[in-house]
């Protein structure tokens, strides 16, 4: 009998596939993982503490930096919670613009996911193709609000910029292009046997586990629970539009891939529908110059590409929040990782971790 020994391997904080500065302390026996302890916090910037000293408008640029691949949704989460607390009326056009940007951002975010996930699995080109298409979205955002990543686009009561001339047409062109382009992705990735082999049947968890770990977004839907805040807590004007909530069957990483691809398609569908009904109008509601939010407490969740992005605001009637807490979906979703990784090997670790889709800026707040 050969004497074997478990060894401790520090994966990260600098590692190509931990998507940032996540550190996984893994105990491995050969390549088989016995125990995982995720160490987070390397990117902790204390956004919640900073927010206590910032006015509601000033918080918005900080939210850009939480989940930096879908900053629009972050903008919206804090703006939405503030508006709820203030009881503000949002002009229709502003809401539509918000929805267009959020859905485009979801597409962009999922594209990043598909790309980096395939990169984790060792395929290079899909990554570049995804970024190429994402680039179009970023350029659209750049035209709209002057930045490619940190948009700072939404304001309490509306949005900062109206769509520039011809912007909506460009969005429509992109939607049409992207709907076709999705087939290319399926040709390239979905049928690839190696990809299927790598992702099929790994990282499976039950509905009960998913609920207990409070997973959200695709990570919850993949278990077959059709839970989407866009429909079920119906913020913004999502109830006006038709879209499906794709759910998974088995709940493995392959399901997550298909689910997110479908979500891209659904998001494009929403954008298309919004483009059909969007009308001229004001983009800012009646908002006092100095935002004083009435005393109270509010928790509002929105469906970010990664799951339920919530914002818990406690206000004491001043122009700054007394306490602001983000429910950061990546943080919740990452918690299940040690359970999923027990007994897997290192290659699967990369695939499973990639499947969860974390953004370290969001995990660490």
């Amino acid at each position, binding site marked *: 009998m050969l004497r074997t020994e478990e060894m401790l391997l520090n994966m990260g904080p600098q590692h190509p596939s931990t998507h940032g500065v996540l550190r996984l302390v893994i105990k491995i026996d050969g390549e088989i993982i016995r125990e995982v302890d995720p160490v*987070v*916090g390397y990117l*902790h910037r*204390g956004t*919640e*503490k900073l927010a206590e000293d910032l006015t509601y408008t000033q918080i918005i640029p900080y939210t850009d930096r939480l989940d930096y691949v879908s900053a629009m949704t972050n903008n919206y989460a804090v703006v939405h919670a503030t*508006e*709820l*607390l*203030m*009881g*503000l*009326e*949002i002009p229709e056009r502003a809401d539509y613009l918000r929805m267009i940007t959020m859905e485009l951002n979801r597409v962009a975010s999922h594209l990043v996911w598909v790309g980096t996930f395939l990169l984790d699995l060792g395929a290079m080109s899909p990554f570049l193709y995804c970024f190429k298409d994402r680039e179009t979205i970023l350029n659209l955002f750049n035209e709209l609000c002057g930045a490619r990543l940190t948009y700072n686009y939404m304001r309490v009561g509306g949005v900062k910029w109206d769509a520039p001339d011809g912007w909506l047409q460009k969005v429509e062109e992109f939607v049409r292009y992207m709907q076709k382009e999705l087939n290319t992705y399926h040709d390239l990735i979905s049928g690839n046997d190696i990809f299927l082999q790598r992702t099929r049947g790994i990282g499976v968890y039950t*509905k*009960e*586990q998913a*609920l*207990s*770990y*409070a997973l959200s977004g695709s990570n919850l839907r993949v278990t*077959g*629970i*059709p*839970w989407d805040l866009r*429909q*079920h*807590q*119906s*913020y913004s004007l999502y*109830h006006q539009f038709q879209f499906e909530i794709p759910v998974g069957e088995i709940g493995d990483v392959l399901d997550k891939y298909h689910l997110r691809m479908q979500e891209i398609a659904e998001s494009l569908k929403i954008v298309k529908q919004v483009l059909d009904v969007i009308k001229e109008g004001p983009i800012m509601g009646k908002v006092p110059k100095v935002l004083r939010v*009435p*005393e*109270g*407490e*509010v*928790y*509002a*969740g929105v469906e970010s590409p990664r799951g*339920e992005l*919530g914002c*818990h605001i*406690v*206000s*004491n*009637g001043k122009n700054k929040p*007394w*306490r602001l*807490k983000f*429910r950061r979906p990546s*943080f*919740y979703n*990452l*918690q*299940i990782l040690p359970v999923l990784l027990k007994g897997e090997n290192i290659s699967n670790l990369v695939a499973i971790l990639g499947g969860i889709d974390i953004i370290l800026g969001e995990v*660490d*707040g």
Partner: protein
Amino acid sequence: MSDQEKKQERELITETKPANAMGEGTVKNESSNGEQGVQKSDAPSQEVTGDGSEPVSKEQDTQMSVKTLSGQAEEAVTKPQAASVPPRKPAATPRPVAKKPVEDKPLEPSRKQPWLDKFVVKLKDLEGSEHLEDAFINRANLDLPTLVIKGEWWRFLALHLRNHSDCQFHYVQNFSSVDYETHLEVVVHLFSFPHKERLGVRIKVDRTEAKADSVADIWDAANWNEREAYDLMGITFEGHPDLRRIMLTDQWVGHPLRKDYVPYDEGV
């Protein structure tokens, strides 16, 4: 989840829409919670101590939160408008009344009020039963039913909320903690998939000796969140399997989200 349940979920869509409209439409919300939390935290706790000594049968009436209602839970359900009482009244601190003149007409009772009243009654039937400090509807937050729980009962109630067939709050939507300067509060937003109900739970925690029971074994999601609350807010969760700092380094001094936090300076 069965198909039937899925359907129920779909139904929820229609259910929540009006709520959304209301949340934005009505000009808010007395939001006694904030006030009570920030300024009036002493009062409830005093009354709480009174409650403990009351006979069990009377407890419901003497509970601070339901006191004004004095057993009107049923009434509130049957004739809310006729009473022309602000719906929050049952749970109210005096503040909403003070705000009343501002409003042209009294607010309609929240659609969640009947549900909450029933729910509270059921909770009170549990053994011990002095666990609730307050129960009200947070109108600003899309009529979120909110319970204020005494710290020592948190674990007991958490188990109940998680497991009892009437509750089944399997899902932690949010796990937050707030420093009200007079006391700390752990705020948990729960969601029940079978019943499609949201519930806000607030647990009061003493500030100097910040301790609360851990619920990490009840909801797995609470594990890291409790670590985060411990790290940043300095609440010790007793019974937590692995209570370490999560965001900051292990050598960090102090808990940054406390309002009186001053960065530790080695030179000083």
